[in-house]
């Protein structure tokens, strides 16, 4: 058992490393198609009044005159050794830029994750137990509404109402607890919708199961039944979504952080895009891929150990065939 699990773990880990490296190469190729580069752009700024020769000297200093393949090999080599290079825009080490931005984004994404789960649970509970049929129907359509409102509109409205009208938080200090809460809310709303839908669907399913009826007949209170017997089993498929949710939160951070003026990875991306700061863009995308692949790897490695239905012999087969059965979960990735 342990030997075959070891092999499985090793295989999955190797696969994960390959995906990360491929993601890096892919991103590099996409980005290096970018026209122009920020250094030359800056130097060409007429206020600098530099000649072409002078510009060429500085460009050579940054190694931007080498062929793309050479640049890729050099860049990949540095990436493997953990060197992310320097920002072309600010001359600061990329690792420092990301390190500075990471805590803010983690706080935002973490809060948003908690909020989205809370929102989803509240909606699901309401859909199950609200006394009015009409109210249940309205609540049932809330996830769909959440999925239809652009992130930026939610953010703008929250800022207008809670920052400028009600003074519940200030835009000067976007990292304050209150401001973080509202930014996280912006991010949580679209993420909570699919979570809520999964919960609702599973609750529908579970509440028709025998044990729920039995428990109810024993006089278990609604809230306890909900918490103990319905939410817990329903959370399993929701937990399986965690890697996707993390990805969504990172993507959504670009808009949310821009609107709220937070200095996180999203803002770093936004600035890097407008200034074509290739090393920074490359690093953020790679980081996102590393996070995503790692979270997935962990889920894959942990779940066979936890899931009693998967015994040692069937595990590898299960992994191989998972895609075949995953139409039940549509696009949950391997």
């Amino acid at each position, binding site marked *: 058992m342990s030997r075959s699990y070891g092999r499985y773990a090793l295989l999955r880990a190797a696969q994960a490393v390959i995906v990360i490296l491929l993601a890096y190469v892919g991103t590099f190729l996409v980005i290096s198609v970018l*026209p*122009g580069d*920020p250094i*030359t*752009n*800056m*130097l*060409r*700024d*007429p*206020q*600098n*009044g*530099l*000649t072409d020769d*002078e510009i060429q*000297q*500085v460009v050579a*200093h*940054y190694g931007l005159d080498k062929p793309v393949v050479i640049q890729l090999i050099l860049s990949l080599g540095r990436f493997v050794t953990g060197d992310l290079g*320097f920002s072309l*825009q*600010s*001359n*600061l080490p990329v690792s420092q*830029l990301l390190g*500075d931005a990471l805590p803010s984004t983690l706080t935002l994404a973490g809060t948003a994750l908690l909020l989205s789960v809370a929102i989803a649970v509240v909606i699901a509970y309401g859909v199950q137990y609200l006394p009015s049929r009409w109210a249940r129907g309205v609540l049932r359509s809330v996830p769909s509404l959440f999925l239809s409102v652009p992130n930026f509109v939610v953010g703008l409205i929250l*800022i207008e109402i809670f*920052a*400028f009208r009600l*003074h519940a938080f*200030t*835009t*000067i200090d976007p990292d304050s607890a209150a401001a973080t809460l509202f930014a996280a809310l912006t991010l949580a709303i679209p993420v909570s919708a699919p979570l809520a839908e999964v919960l609702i669907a599973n609750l529908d399913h579970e509440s028709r199961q025998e044990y729920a009826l039995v428990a109810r007949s024993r006089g278990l209170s609604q809230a306890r039944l909900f918490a103990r017997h319905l939410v817990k089993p329903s959370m399993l498929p929701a937990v399986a979504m965690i890697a996707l949710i993390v990805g969504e939160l990172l993507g959504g951070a670009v808009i949310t952080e*821009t*609107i709220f*003026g937070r*200095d996180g990875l999203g*803002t770093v991306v936004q*600035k890097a895009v*407008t*200034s*074509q700061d290739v090393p920074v863009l490359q690093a953020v995308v790679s980081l996102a891929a590393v996070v995503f692949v790692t979270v997935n790897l962990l889920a894959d490695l942990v779940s066979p150990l936890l899931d009693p239905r998967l015994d040692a012999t069937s595990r590898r087969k299960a992994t191989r065939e998972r895609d075949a059965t995953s139409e039940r979960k549509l696009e949950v990735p391997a």
Partner: protein
Amino acid sequence: MIISKRIRRAASAVVAAAATTALLAACAAGTASAPSSSDSAPVEGGDLTFLIQGYDAGWVSSKTSISSYEGNLWGEITDKLIYVDEQGTLSPWIATSWEELNGATEFVLHLKEGVTFSDGSPLDAAAVVDNINIWAKGDPDRGISKVGLFPSGNFDRAEATDSSTVHVFFTSPALSFIPTLAYHGTILLSPATLALSIDDQADLAKQIGSGPFTVKSFTQGDSYVLEKRPDYDWGPEAIGHTGAAYLDTITYKVIKDTSVRTSTVASGQADVAYNVEPQEIESLTDQGFVVDTPRYLGFTDGFQVDTSVAPTNELAVRQAIQHGIDRQDIVDTVYTDKWDVATSFLQGNVPEAGDYSELLSYDPDKSEELLDEAGWVLGSDGYRSKDGTTLEFTVTPNPYVPSTQAEDELIAQQLKRIGIKVNLNVVDVSGYAAVLAAHPPLFQTSRSFVDVGTVAGILTSQNKGEDWFKTGTSDQKLNDLANGIATASDRDSRQALVDDLQQYVLEQGYSIPTVELVQRLYLLSPKVKGVTFNGLAYANFATAWIAP
């Protein structure tokens, strides 16, 4: 030794310092509320929060050229040799006086004694020589470039003759040398800072200046806290207060979004916002806020025209555009009555600027006539074409002046009426220079200068000139004017040439000015008093205080 007119000019400026200051204060306060900025005694202490778009260019002072954004912070932590006020008058600062020798080929600068950088090292002649060398030549080995407007083509060398005297040599007359010392690019940094590698210079904490404020702490790209230097005692007399700042700290906080910056100050959560939407000014001043719209010395807002590419290689097209733009409509729609239509391509406060509004009149009939004669036929789609080519071009709004996007959209509407199709391309600050490299027919320019002599450097390709209009050396009249202005040894003969130049450039449609540029807008909370503005339209917060 000949003592130049310029020195006499400067001396009289110092004498008139008090009067000037009062005038500046009045200007600073904007409209009717003029006395408000000087009606109470300055209050010591206080922390000011200043909201700004961004500090994306980094802090390598010479590499990035100092942008409109970084310039605000640089101006508080550094000093310059010479001060220039809003009228273009030069006055002493770190240089207490200066001499112009040998037909403006040599200059002697006499420095204020006892000035120190914030690391304790002296701001003496040796330090100034180090600075001048970097401004003039940069250091290509370290990737450090020179300061763009510095007259480096004919720069020879700078020498310290004693601890407070610097002697600067040029190979030919350099009338613009002294004014350039007041430019926001020629900031004095400690020799230790100048010696750093380019990567170390990127760290703002290592930028040591001699200004009224020092960098206390910062988070790159987010917020920057400056604190006052209590021992500062060498501010320019022209701003009326040479001692230490009244404010304890200034916090520059990056808020990228214009509407958020505005609303944050409007809701009382910050003191100053940089660059607000002009159309929001009226509602802000109605609420008691002060919006300052200082003008810098330099070129107006408008376009430099590339005469080497279609369709602007045709005189008729250039002239049609010149008369097809309704400048008053731009002021009325995009701006407010604090803006003025351009009457030349030089800002009205440049002493040599003239009024050429007749050459810039809105006359769509004339434009259509010009285009008809040139064979541009109006098609069914509302646009003109010739030989199957539509009369169209792309303009890129100047990202340093946020309101230019609305302005260019409006210009596109106006030119559509005479059958010209204008496309817009919106880029960020960092992509703007690449736009110019692609030879757009019209390129929106904003450029400040201190001395009109530097204009000679942009007209043609002679002497490594920037060749704004891409005439190279083909336009003999332009060549002569550029040479004449560059080599003029007295101001009166230069004035005549500059007059000629303005007339010619506008007639030829080489330059298409729109409005007098207000590149730097300051939205001030009513509590902020005593802010002054220099000739490059930057605020000086050394004179400011916060009313209790």
